[in-house]
């Protein structure tokens, strides 16, 4: 095939965006990838293991990250956002805001000397604020690109005009306080793929979780926080401890459909929580064979490949008890042990269970900033504010030439996100090749 002159723009560097970009790049099509965060990887980088085979998430993701970063057909704009898009299918142009990270990208070798010296401690967003990072930081240890970023909001130089200690420490002279935001103009874009993933309900509205004790009781955590706690490179080094007293929990309650399938919050089902909950309980059990897990659920939704056997294994081998139930209330006793009051649908009784830790399977919601992005792109959103797609063609948006994949149009697991990503790449390629 002759060389194609049109390129593709992929917005979002989670697993879906990465896969779409890699497929296109492997077809010989140039891809510009825009990622808001300092590193690509998305949510998958935050997970410990992944159902249904429980492979280590970063192990299978890392080779993809570096492939994406190094691919001769992919230009990555990290720490960047799309500001403007014009034109139509086959001929879009776009403006990218590339935010200053105050680091010379080619110079930084991620040695971390600067981090050690930086006096400013900041809540670590990647670790769901369960630990602190510094004002100069790498988004996560295995992150790509493997370079530092200075958090302008927190850096003492930018806030108080003092310090600049990193500059003195860096042997590579990689720190550049004079750096400025850049606007990059991209032309000749044949198609666009939107893969900006999802947020969680606690990111946009903590209040709705108050009923479940989240933010109120220290021993109530969200599922994504629990992933970080289980992870060997997470804030507790993979040894799960309660925040109230540092004790290892022996009894954990997992509460399903928190904010999902609800009349008050979101009506839809988040699709993946039944599965990841069983996974989280399994892994917790692998850490500690005395653990008892209780999963409080409405319907067990496990239709994917190998999912039913996964649940069966969970019940048979990992000491997980599944309780069909409606949660009435959560309180704590004087030792901060959570108490769950629920209606057991198997015997129709109101029952109480005291546990050491509660994990909430919180609702998946459209990613923050989706309205703005939809406006820039001129695409429609659906009733729930996810991207609206053509009936039966989940990768097509309301605008010709703009495609989508992954959680940004509907909550879904990794296999489906990856399949859709390839699907979106095929559709994007059709336009770029003039089909």
């Amino acid at each position, binding site marked *: 095939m002759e060389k194609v002159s049109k390129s593709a723009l992929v917005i979002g560097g989670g697993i879906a965006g990465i896969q779409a970009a890699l497929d296109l790049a492997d077809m010989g099509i140039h891809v510009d990838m825009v990622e808001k965060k300092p590193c690509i990887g998305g949510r998958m980088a935050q997970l410990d293991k992944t159902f249904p*085979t429980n492979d280590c998430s970063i192990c299978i993701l890392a080779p993809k990250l570096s492939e994406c970063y190094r691919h001769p057909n992919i230009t990555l704009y990290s720490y960047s956002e799309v500001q403007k898009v014009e034109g139509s299918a086959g001929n879009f142009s776009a403006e990218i805001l590339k935010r200053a990270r105050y680091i010379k990208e080619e110079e930084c070798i991620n040695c971390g000397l600067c981090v050690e010296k930086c006096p400013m401690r900041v809540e670590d967003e990647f670790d769901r604020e369960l630990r602190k990072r510094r004002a100069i930081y790498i988004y996560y240890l295995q992150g790509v690109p493997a370079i530092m970023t200075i958090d302008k909001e927190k850096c003492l130089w930018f806030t108080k005009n003092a310090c600049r200690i990193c500059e003195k420490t860096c042997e590579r002279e990689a720190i550049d306080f004079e750096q400025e935001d850049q606007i990059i103009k991209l032309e000749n874009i044949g198609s666009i793929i939107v893969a900006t993933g999802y947020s969680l309900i606690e990111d946009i509205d903590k209040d709705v979780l108050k009923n479940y004790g989240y933010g109120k009781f220290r021993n109530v955590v969200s599922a994504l926080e629990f992933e970080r706690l289980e992870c060997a490179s997470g804030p507790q080094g993979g040894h799960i401890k309660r925040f109230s007293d540092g004790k290892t929990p022996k009894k954990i309650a997992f509460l399903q459909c928190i904010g999902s399938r609800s009349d008050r919050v979101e*009506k839809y089902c988040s699709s993946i929580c039944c599965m990841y909950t069983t996974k989280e309980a399994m892994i917790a059990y692998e850490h500690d064979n005395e653990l008892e897990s209780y999963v409080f659920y409405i319907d*067990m939704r496990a239709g994917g490949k190998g999912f039913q056997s996964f649940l069966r294994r969970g019940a048979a081998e990992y000491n997980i008890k599944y309780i069909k139930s409606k949660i009435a209330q959560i309180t704590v006793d004087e030792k901060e042990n959570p108490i769950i009051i629920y209606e057991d649908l198997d015997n*129709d009784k109101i029952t109480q269970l005291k546990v050491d830790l509660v994990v909430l399977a919180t609702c998946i919601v459209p990613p923050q900033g989706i309205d703005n992005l939809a406006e820039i792109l001129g695409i429609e959103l*659906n009733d729930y504010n996810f991207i609206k797609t053509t009936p039966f063609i989940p990768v097509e948006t309301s605008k010709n030439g703009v495609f989508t994949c992954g959680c940004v149009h*509907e909550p879904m697991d*990794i296999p*489906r996100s990856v399949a859709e990503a*390839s699907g979106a790449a*095929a559709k994007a390629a059709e336009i770029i090749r003039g089909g």
Partner: protein
Amino acid sequence: MSEERNEEEIRVGVFVCHCGSNIGGVIDCKKLAEEVRNFPDVAYTEDNLYTCSENGLAAIKKAVEEHKLNRVVVASCTPRTHEPLFRECISEAGLNPYLFNFVNIRDQCTWVHMKHPEEAYDKAKDLIKMGAAKAVKLEPLDMIMVNINPAALVIGGGVAGMSAALSLSRQGFKTYIVEKEDKLGGRLNSLHKLFPYDIEATEFVGKIINNVKNAQNLEVITSSRVINIEGFIGNYEVEIDQNGNIRKLEVGAIIVAVGSSLLNPQGLFGYDGIKRITQYELEPKLKNKDLKAKEVVMIQCAGSRNDERPYCSSVCCMTALKNALTIKELNPDIHVTILFRDLYTPGTSYEEYYRKAREQGVLFVKYDEDRMPNVEENQVKVFNEYIGDEMIIAYDLLVLSTPLVANSDNKDLAQLLKVPLEANGFFLEAHVKLRPNDFATDGVYIGGSAKWPVDITETISQGYAAASRASTILSHETIEVEGATSILPEYNKSLCTGCEVCIKVCPYNAIKKNENDEIEIIQALCKGCGLCAATCTNKALVIRHFTDDQILSEIYAYGGE
């Protein structure tokens, strides 16, 4: 090639990186660089502040030229991030990129032994000694080029196959669909409406079939089957039997989209095909509006999620809701009760559909696997999990939601393609999460319900996905594959006993016996894991870049001969 090597004098250059103070702050890199000069075949050494910087790379190039180096060792961070850079550098200096070896003295040495600088120094020295010893044995390798025939074969003409074929043909590739029936469309030909959009199935699939008929580059071969497949990625020869006529196709990639079958319902809940039928049999009744029943009961998971078929067929709950809603539309007075275990309506629009069914007065009764509904002549006895009591529900039509099952002839196709099936007989993809539409064998892809029961939405995106994966290959006249593959070198041919252990152990079907009954490694498929070399009964196979000779030389360098 081993003979050739002996003639050339080996001259190894070692470059020790300070990495600022990351390495240099713990151990004395200058001294180290001097000391390693005494190792066998080392002709030149130097230390650099940052070997990966422009200065460092220039220094390597200069030294290669001035000192006639033909092997380069860099002792610095980790090959996982920096090997490509240095390989490129020495290739610019005129050396084959495989004549480079990496020694990790930062991530796995100075960073982890900061408080033991002396030991760290000794370790770094050992590692360099080992690395240099391996470098001596390194051989130049060429990237392997494979020609690609830019045409594709899609097996199966349901929505999955048609979506894949349409996308490939639109991308400009000659595409064939081989369909065993006399028409395209698959399962959708016999359905009524489609959830969740309430579109007529025949209308929907009719449009796609039309697109296929009008597409350029796309040829449909109906009433035919694949009977033989030879070749490998980029170069397949396929034999098709069309009503007794044999035809040969040459393609570069193959997509499997053979869909799924229906479970034979005999013996399930008193199935008789008249009063007790399946959802599939209900659909034409609804289409023809010849439903006489007043009391309809549907049983979910009929024949699935049990020990025999431990999976959820994932489309049956929605099918039941769809048909229940259609019934309500025909006549709101008909009672519809759905007996279910867990209602599978994930995501946004499916959950909405469930709410709609409840609003329309469809009754839902949850039963448990341990207390299966008991079907009698005119009524069903079921233990209602929500109420905790037995219920008796009268019916004049019982509808079983039976699962999609794997085609019984998948096995034959799997054998032709040398791809695996999973326990239920569906096709098994290369990696459940990250390669959902690939097979482990490059060049063969999979999409739709042949892999697992899925709805149309997922089927279509998987059809496109398979097309995308195939396109990553078909877009190139030739593809380059890793040079560090396995081979059966000429000088080892006599060692091979033809035991075929290697064929069995290779995860990628990269090894076969050729026409001459000799073991041959299909370079295009080999991923260089080295399992075959480690297993070969007579050590005939050689995994390049990680040869026995190379690894043993590292061991000797450390252990002392």
